[in-house]
């Protein structure tokens, strides 16, 4: 009887051949059950995207004022969170932080999912997606969006190449000798790819910030800066680098919680948290200086009375406090302090707050900017995404979960997993 139950809990024979040896994974039926809701969500997203592409963007709740809505806001947010891919790669391959090898595969897949998801949503968001190639053919070199398009496209190619060796490590694919050779050769390329990825990410993360910082017509978003780059250019790079590592940690912790397994040693989390803490502290400092200069100088020069930005509910001064102190300074201190960081609960809370802070920053720049009136006779407007927008985005989340789940099951993402499982078994025998 016990044998029967253990057989039922194991993957089916055909399925097992694709799973790495000694890698404990759930039964095929259980895995399919896990995928079912995500597949349904993906189908709903595809249907909503079809409606927008087939009938036009009036299927959304966007309008001539809220020309950017949920999609652009969440695109900016997931691209920031996906920065863990380039930054972890940079730390591992360029600065040689060997301990990060434990999470590099997850970082790459999270990055790939975030970037490819963002590009998919963008293809629905633009009015004429078939003309996307025009940007490459008639580029306006003065536009931040040109730089974003170039770098994101190139970086997505880099991420796809980085994903390849992880994919080729699959038990079944390894049996093809040429794949094995290819994978081996790819590993030699990794430092170069990490360097290229860091370079491209540096520019597109910055340009995403610059996208709003250059808008002279929107005093709420406009910032002065250095040369052609407004301060938001640098703040976006720094904030993305700050939350990238903790987002990789959050994803890994979530996988550990869902699968009830230990996948990464706590020391690795400490490295990720400490790195984020340091960068976040630096970001909060610069963000505070930037806010003070903007409120007291840039904005006044444009003729906007700074207090009027926060006179429109629900965007009161609380949003500024939340962004800089509650979701900036507080998580920075938690992640920076070895004492607090050592407690898993605090570390997780710090990571969550840090990610929420950067998401709020992207929200403020996209949604709050468009809500505020610039002409003296315009009104403060609000916007709420409709089901098509929400479903399209949830569809992308579902796509991400499915890609990650398949990768987790069939690829070897965590080099410490087997070791930790053995240690766990030994510990249980001893006890």
């Amino acid at each position, binding site marked *: 009887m016990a044998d029967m139950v253990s057989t039922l809990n194991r993957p089916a024979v055909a399925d097992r051949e694709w799973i790495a040896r000694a890698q404990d994974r759930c039964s095929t039926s259980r895995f399919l059950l896990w995928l079912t809701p995500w597949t349904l969500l993906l189908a709903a997203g595809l249907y909503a995207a079809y409606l927008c592409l087939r009938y036009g963007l009036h299927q959304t709740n966007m309008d001539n004022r809220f*020309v950017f809505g949920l999609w652009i806001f969440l695109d900016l947010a997931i691209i920031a969170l996906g920065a863990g891919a380039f930054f972890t790669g940079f730390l591992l391959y360029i600065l040689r932080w060997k301990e990060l090898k434990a999470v590099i595969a997850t970082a790459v897949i999270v990055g790939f999912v975030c970037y490819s998801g963002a590009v998919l949503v963008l293809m629905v968001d633009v009015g004429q997606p078939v003309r996307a190639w025009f*940007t490459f053919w008639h580029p306006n070199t003065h536009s931040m969006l040109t730089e974003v398009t170039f770098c994101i496209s190139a970086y997505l190619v880099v991420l796809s190449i980085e994903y390849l060796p992880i994919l080729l490590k699959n038990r079944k694919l390894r049996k093809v000798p040429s794949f094995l050779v290819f994978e081996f050769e790819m590993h030699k390329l990794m430092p170069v790819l990490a360097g290229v990825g860091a370079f491209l990410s540096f520019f597109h993360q910055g340009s995403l910030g610059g996208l709003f910082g*250059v808008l002279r017509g929107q005093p709420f978003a406009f910032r002065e800066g250095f040369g052609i780059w407004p301060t938001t250019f640098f703040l976006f790079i720094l904030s993305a680098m700050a939350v990238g590592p903790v987002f990789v940690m959050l994803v890994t912790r979530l996988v550990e919680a869902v699968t009830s397994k230990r996948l990464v040693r706590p020391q690795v989390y400490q490295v990720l948290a400490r790195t984020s803490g340091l960068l976040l502290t630096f970001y909060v400092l610069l963000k505070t200086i930037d806010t003070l200069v903007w409120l007291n100088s840039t904005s006044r020069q444009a003729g906007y009375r700074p207090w009027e930005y926060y006179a429109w509910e629900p965007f009161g001064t609380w949003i500024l406090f939340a962004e800089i102190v509650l979701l900036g300074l507080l998580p920075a201190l938690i992640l920076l302090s070895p004492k607090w960081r050592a407690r898993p609960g605090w570390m997780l809370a710090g990571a969550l707050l840090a990610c929420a802070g950067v998401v709020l920053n992207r929200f403020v720049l996209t949604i709050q900017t468009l809500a505020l*009136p610039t002409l003296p006779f315009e009104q403060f407007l609000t916007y709420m995404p409709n089901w098509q927008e929400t479903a399209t985005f949830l569809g992308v989340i579902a796509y991400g979960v499915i890609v990650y789940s398949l990768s987790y099951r069939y690829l070897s993402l965590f080099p410490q997993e087997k070791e930790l499982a053995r240690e766990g078994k030994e510990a249980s025998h001893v006890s």
Partner: protein
Amino acid sequence: MNAETVERAPRRYGMVIDLDRCSGCGACMVACSAENNVPPAHPQATERTGITLLRVVQVKDAASRGVAFIPMMCQQCGDDTPCMTVCPQQAVEVDKLTGVVEQMPQRCLGCRYCMTACPFQARFFNWWDPEWPAGMETTLNPGAAPRMRGVVEKCDFCQSRMHAAEDKAAMEGSREFEYTPACVEACPTRAIVFGDLNDPESDVSRQARNSFRFLERLGTGPKVYYRSRRPWLRTLASRVGAPPKKENGNG
């Protein structure tokens, strides 16, 4: 652009709108839509999703019980034109010979970044396919190409009329031409004056001297000027941003 046109002295087309003359009748809006082949609003379109290349906004002053109408269209910004600098694929151009900010819908991706850059809310997205009631297509202006769904459009000082005037002059062997945008022609109170701001003797240049512009402090160099003797209107125009909540008497 051929050598002949380059030789012509560059113009800088602009407008002066006398707000004290504007009665808010909306004739300019109708003329604008007809000239530029703007389709009838889709039944589901709202004030926020419709296309009004020229819109007349009513403003009120609670203290003096004053009412005014402000015709608002693309202000043809001349200094680092915000929409032109941000467009990723050069679908926006400033004509060096006229100073007019031109939109090329056939190259527009529909990313709408230019719309976020425009402080005047003067750009409009085609949320629907353009549709005309049966038979009405025959009344379309052959000089202005209708725009498809998914692209941005805006006022271009009736380039269709300018090209027609230019062609007519060329046929007559001349390079000199004058033209009048549809809104200027339609205004029953002659509230809108149009012309070359580079010509100091033109009506538009003379009137522009004693006028103001909206959002002047943003430094985008609009070429549409406004006039009014009413102090509250001039005060309102000097503001950047609307007065919050109860201060806002615009209704």
